[in-house]
């Protein structure tokens, strides 16, 4: 069984996005588990800056050679920054999904929604269960 890095400071969705919260700014990416399951990401489609997103709804797409996967917003809010270089070269999503491979920054509408997300120990448990 593979062990994945699951930084303690992040929040997680059950669809394997991570969210790093700094006051009302939320940086979003996919987890190491997700990139490993996807295989080589060959394409990604990200929203425009200023676009509104809703918790649990798609804000973009990542494609590996074989599969298309929706990216789901961990919180509701407004996209204020997009990791645009990924749209030409998405390699960082595989190489460094939790740093260089970040996808978007969202200005979150309400902190209350964070209660719907998982913390590291709980997320770790869900991926351990899905592997066994």
């Amino acid at each position, binding site marked *: 069984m593979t062990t994945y890095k699951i930084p303690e400071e992040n929040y997680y969705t059950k669809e394997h996005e991570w969210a790093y919260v700094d006051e009302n700014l939320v940086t979003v990416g996919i987890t190491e588990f997700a990139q490993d399951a996807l*295989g*080589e990401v*060959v*394409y990604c*489609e990200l929203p425009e800056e200023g676009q509104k997103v809703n918790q649990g709804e798609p804000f973009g*797409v990542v*494609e590996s*050679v*074989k599969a298309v996967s929706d990216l789901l917003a961990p919180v509701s809010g407004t996209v204020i920054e997009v990791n645009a270089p990924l*749209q030409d070269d998405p390699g960082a999503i595989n190489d460094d999904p939790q740093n260089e491979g970040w996808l978007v920054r969202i200005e979150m509408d309400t902190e209350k929604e964070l209660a719907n997300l998982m913390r590291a120990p709980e997320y770790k448990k869900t991926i351990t269960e899905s592997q066994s």
Partner: protein
Amino acid sequence: MSTQKTPLSSEHERLGGKMVDFDGWWMPVQFKGLKLEHACVREGVGLFDVSHMGELRVSGEHSLKSLQWLTSNDVSKLKKGQAQYSLLTNFEGGIVDDLIVYCLEPGADYLLCVNASNKDKDLAWVTKNNKGADITDESSFWAQVAIQGPKAMELMKEVLGASVESINSFSFLPLSFKGTECLVARTGYTGEDGVEVFIPSEVAVDFWSTLLKKGEPFDVQPIGLGARDTLRTEMKYSLYGHEIDDSTSPIEAGLGWVVKLEAKEFIGSEKIQSVKDKGPQQKLVGFKMLERGIARQGYRLFSFDNNEVGRVTSGTPSPSLSENIGIAYLPVEYCKIGSEFLVEIRNKKIKAVTVKTPFVQKG
């Protein structure tokens, strides 16, 4: 249905293959990475476990007569040791499966290599429409390994001796691997030189390990299903369930060259003749994306005046070309090379253009 393992499944797990359930088979989708594996086959040599493929033995005095009725190509042309790409056709002129017919003994003994996902369907179909041949399912007896790439024949010489070089394209030879007879065919699904080797299941692990060991100087790599698909798509080879199925016509699929309507009567031949006479309404073409986006199977195609004109059968990024390519059925008026149309990707219409195929020109 439980997942079946090939004799090599545990070898793949040991080598770090990412394993998936592929049509009921526990198969590696990739090992070190799809792009690396793809390049390895285009530039060096790669190994594919294709043991999931089905093998049906058709023998006896009525074998030729049966195969002439069941398949679209002219089996009477095959000499001992020759192989032929062909189709099992249905009475509507559609395609039950695509396959390779290997002639072990003209008029007496043939081996059919069929798609894994169709094997049970094929066996039932062949049995039902048989004209007195003896039909045996030998799928569990045989493992199959494909060795493909510009360095494949050098590696095979090391493993099986110099006689492998005498095998011509679409021919095969029984050769000994450590005393066990295997069938070595100069065929493949990548567009590269190489062989596909039928080997009894119990020696498959030894054969595979020997190939990896003797292949070290050639930097041989095991190749997953992911690269198998990108390699075949770059050659515009049909994949059953994508380009061809029970309802597609061989003429529309561009497989008229394996349909010998002048030579014989076979299942569905009249229907296929009538498609040919009328001229096909649509044809299978290759295209590349002109804007960002990957076309996927089932995506709809539109004209610039917004009429739906076709569907994508396969689409992928091409590792060799660094472009996004695809295959689709389009009305004949769109089939001219350079015709532009739109692919609907997640509610957006993205420009594409028909191009010459194979996408990757070899030799």
